[in-house]
């Protein structure tokens, strides 16, 4: 019960009000034709198109696809990133051998790999998943390694003095100490995975929100296109909020590391 306290009051009511006011201004600008924005529809048109897409179109199905791919890809990236990050973070030798290769590979923007992915996997779900996983691994890997390597040496001495086993040291000292950094990596990866999923859907896999965007463009339906833009934005917010909630519930203290004054 206590963990849900303060969720509602924490909603930024002032910020929400400003957002609503901006939307209202947008509506007025378009309906009074203050500016000729043929391809920028009014919020009311977008709302009407949204209604249509939800009940007669494929918004729900496409959203489910994008969410599914994002979460699946992110999950795989998390497992791989955490496992590899743990191994490299704990072993200075392994770190030394592999970091140059990793630094070079992770500098490659995932988007530049889209054509290659298309060639290898074709227009398929596989292509989308591979892109999402490849992009999502890096923030998690880097942050896990960073979190582990920044653990103060005194803590390692504590583990030695208490004669903790290797597993005991990792479970009781290393993971909790690295946790804030790891959570940051997971958050970054989640946003990145969503973006890559949509990119892959626009370019490669005809499904999901990305595909909705393309369809709307091809049929010259700006209101519907913006429905998908808004949907993608809301999805991003929802995923982040869900992750934040998950961290708060499962890992108390995982989102902050309160240092002593």
């Amino acid at each position: 019960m206590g963990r849900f306290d303060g969720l509602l009051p924490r909603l930024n009511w002032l910020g929400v009000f400003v957002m609503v006011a901006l939307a209202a201004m947008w509506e007025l600008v378009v309906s009074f034709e203050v500016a000729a924005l043929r391809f920028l529809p009014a919020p009311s048109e977008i709302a009407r198109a949204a209604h249509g897409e939800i009940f007669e179109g494929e918004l729900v199905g496409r959203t489910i696809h994008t969410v599914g791919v994002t979460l699946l890809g992110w999950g795989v990236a998390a497992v791989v990133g955490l496992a590899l990050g743990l191994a490299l973070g704990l072993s200075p030798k392994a770190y030394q051998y592999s970091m140059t290769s990793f630094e070079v590979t992770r500098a490659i923007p995932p988007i530049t790999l889209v054509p290659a992915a298309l060639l290898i996997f074709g227009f398929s779900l596989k292509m989308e998943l591979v892109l999402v996983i490849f992009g999502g691994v890096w923030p998690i890997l880097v942050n896990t390694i960073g979190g582990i390597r920044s653990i103060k040496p005194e803590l390692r001495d504590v583990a030695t003095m208490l004669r903790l086993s290797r597993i005991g040291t990792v479970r009781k000292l290393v993971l909790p100490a690295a946790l804030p950094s790891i959570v940051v990596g997971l958050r970054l990866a989640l946003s990145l995975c969503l973006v890559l999923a949509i990119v892959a859907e626009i370019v490669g896999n005809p499904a999901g929100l990305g595909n909705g965007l393309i369809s709307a463009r091809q049929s010259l339906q700006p209101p519907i296109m913006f429905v998908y833009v808004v949907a993608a934005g809301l999805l991003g917010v929802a995923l982040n909020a869900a992750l934040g909630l998950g961290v708060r519930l499962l890992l108390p203290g995982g989102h902050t590391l309160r240092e002593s004054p």
Partner: protein
Amino acid sequence: MEPSYECSNLRAEVGSRHGERRLVLDDVSFTVAKPEFVSIMGRSGVGKSTLLRVLAGLHEPSPGSIVRFDGQQVVGPPEGVSLVFQDYTSSLLPWRNVAKNVELPLEGSLGKTERRQRVFEALEMVGLADRADAQPFELSGGMQQRVQLARALASRPTVLLMDEPFGALDALTKAELEDQLLGIFAATKTTVVFVTHDIDEAVYLSDRVLVLDGSPARIAADIRVDCLRPRTQLRTRESAEFLAARHQVYEVIFGTL
């Protein structure tokens, strides 16, 4: 009295990441009996912490060094030895509360009820039994150091190694903790090896003061402190025995004045 620690011909090097090794301790020889309160005193950087880390089994001395605990050569942390670090912020676990921090050395070797009992006893000894549920960041520096002390005491060690434990604290808190430590020493008869750069503190607390001096360092003097126990901040520090011992330590460090 049987010896707990015996060191002879102890040499230790400290190395940087680039491979340069510097000889910090050379031909250090001394014994610590049980139960004795011995201070290792010296300037900052002379090698006191290195010496303590060798005793703790955290630092490997150069070949040929003899470091024995209870008759056995020290290879890694010896059984029954606890270490209290100077930097309590970095050695307490911020994600655990006070009780769980103190419990750490007991996990895996004791059952739940016995652990709880020991934790309570240890916290009582340092006067923090009522803060068992607090998080470390909620406590003052002196209190956090007492939590670390409680954690070291929870495993009922035979020897307590302390690396400038009160160095980061203000003078008044330091005085309180010194007396608290003396009380614990008297009650538990644990041998204490106490590293400090504070001459007055070393003399006030100890039975013997080992002065580490030189580069590389060696034991420059082994000074007996004849003050009676129990010691008090006021009376002991004004006594002739205290001043005599203090004088001797000053002369070793600064030369005859």
